[in-house]
């Protein structure tokens, strides 16, 4: 396992022209919340995990921001950074060639591809993370996305390390044609093997998650989580509206809608995410500690045993 974990080389950032954050207010000092329109001091926003302190809006995160929030400082070892996109169809449209678009995107985003994978720890617990970056061509799932995720799953299966995927995506990457579509099959097959190895996969559906990612590994994970307000669907809302000529219901395709319709396990606020993931990892880790003989008996949960019937668990909250 060690050798595998150390296999990937450390990420080497590409030169970036420093415009990766959208909706910026002059300078980098202030940022406008797209939900409540308040101006927020950027440092305050960062300290609050990029959740608006005024209205609770969860700003979208870049992949590396997410990783930084999720794993312990200094623990992340990136994998397969050398796996980089190609242009198998020699695809070109009026806005230019795919290969040029890739280069421009790489420069602009500071990433080689839309999925970052690697090993890290969550409060000391081993985890493999696979995090998509919506700023890289809408985190569309092409060959590299599928290959890196599949390699990560295969190593998780081998080493028994749980996987957490963070899944924002616009869907398939059209520029890679059917190679892109087939990544759905490839990643689901890898997930099936991960399951045979009894290694858990926790999926965080991140805003926005559509198309091929929604229709493959992300929605069949062992535990499926979303942050408040996250949009998740198969078809995009505009497509549905155009085709059906129906008005979409309020809150359509939000995390809350998915919870109500039984598609996700719970909604978690960003501030609670790391703790929740740690708790989940502990639950799965305990299963495999086969040290039978005398079991440790249960103890009353003192936080709860106050003689008063505790409140029912709220959806999306640990109780």
């Amino acid at each position: 396992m060690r050798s595998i974990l150390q296999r990937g080389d450390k990420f080497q950032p590409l030169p970036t022209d420093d415009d990766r954050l959208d909706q910026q207010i002059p300078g980098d000092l202030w940022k406008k919340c797209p939900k409540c329109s308040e101006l927020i001091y950027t440092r305050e926003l960062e300290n609050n995990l990029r959740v608006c302190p005024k209205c609770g809006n969860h700003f979208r995160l870049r992949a590396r921001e997410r990783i930084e929030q999720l794993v312990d400082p200094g623990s992340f070892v990136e994998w397969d950074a050398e796996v980089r996109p190609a242009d198998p169809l020699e695809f070109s449209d009026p806005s230019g060639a795919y290969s040029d678009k890739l280069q421009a995107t790489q420069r602009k985003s500071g990433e080689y591809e839309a999925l970052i994978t690697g090993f890290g720890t969550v409060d000391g617990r081993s985890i493999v993370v696979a995090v998509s970056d919506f700023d890289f061509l809408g985190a569309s799932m092409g060959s590299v996305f599928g290959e890196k995720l599949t390699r990560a799953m295969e190593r998780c299966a081998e080493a028994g390390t749980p996987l957490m995927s963070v899944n924002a995506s616009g869907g398939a990457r059209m520029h890679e044609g059917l190679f892109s579509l087939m990544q759905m099959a490839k990643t689901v097959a890898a997930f099936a093997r991960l399951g045979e190895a009894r290694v858990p996969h926790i999926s965080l559906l991140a805003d926005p998650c559509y198309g091929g990612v929604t229709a493959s590994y992300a929605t069949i994970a062992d535990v499926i989580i979303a942050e408040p307000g996250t949009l998740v669907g198969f078809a995009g809302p505009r497509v549905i509206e155009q085709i059906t000529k129906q008005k979409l219901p309020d809150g359509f395709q939000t995390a809350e809608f998915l919870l109500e319709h039984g598609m996700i396990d719970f909604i978690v606020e960003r501030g609670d995410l790391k703790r929740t993931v740690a708790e989940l990892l502990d639950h799965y880790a305990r299963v495999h500690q086969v040290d039978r003989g005398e079991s440790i008996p249960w103890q009353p949960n003192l936080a709860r045993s106050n003689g008063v019937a505790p409140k029912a668990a709220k959806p999306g909250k640990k109780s």
Partner: protein
Amino acid sequence: MRRALNRRSESTATLEPVESVALTPWDRVKLARHQSRPHSLDYINVLFTGFIELHGDRLFGDDPAIVGGLARFGDRTIVVIGHQKGGDTRENIRRNFGMVRPEGYRKAERLMRHAEKFGIPVVTFIDTPGAEPGIGSEERGQGTAIAESLLTMAGLKTPIVAVIIGEGGSGGALAIGMADRMLMLENAVYAVASPEACAAILWKDAGKAPQAAETMRITAEDLLSFGIVDEVIPELVPAHENTHGTISAVGDAVQRALDELMEVVDQPSGLDRLMEQRYERFRRIGVWSEALPVAAE
């Protein structure tokens, strides 16, 4: 009267026992349904730590009449599933009075498969008037959902402990109750139909429910004598007057049951033996006469 005398939990030892022989089956029905009686989440929140509720059937919806998730019990991770009634009217309406819709059973089934996948034992708490009778429930296959849940439990390759904590209402209760060990609180009831329904049909008068309750043999004592329930957990005083003591006693009984089952599972071919024992557990239930006995197969 009590066949299974349990190690009494510390906290209940000083309480005065009620003269339980004085309780009629109908008294027990009323106790089993008492709104202040501890419900599944009360047990979950005291017996377990780190409960993470998991929602949804991945098909249609999330039924609040069933709660379930991952939790820690002693040094074990378990999957817990329970019917959930409300402690007040508002909550009861939200929980549909613990009457489960097909999506609730499908959520339970999903969680059971989750447990099986990772080798996690399952603990269920039974407390329902019955499966919801409704147009939508019929449209979405209430019968099929219950049957599928039973089929899943019949073959689930991980230990299952069920505790009847309140009202065991017919198929809607059994749907999460096909367990390796069936434990039952002394004042819980478990019946093939509600005494009211039985009285309405056979007595032609729902008001005769107390008599029907008597005739139907629905108490823990009865079911223990029938070999349907494995152990009766005493309520020295009714659970709603002794929440902590009752929950503790349930915790102790679940602990013993899980310890026993995990000991089976930890043997070589332990899962096969568990499956064999579960099959036999239900295989033998029934009473009939065999007029013309044939030679043993």
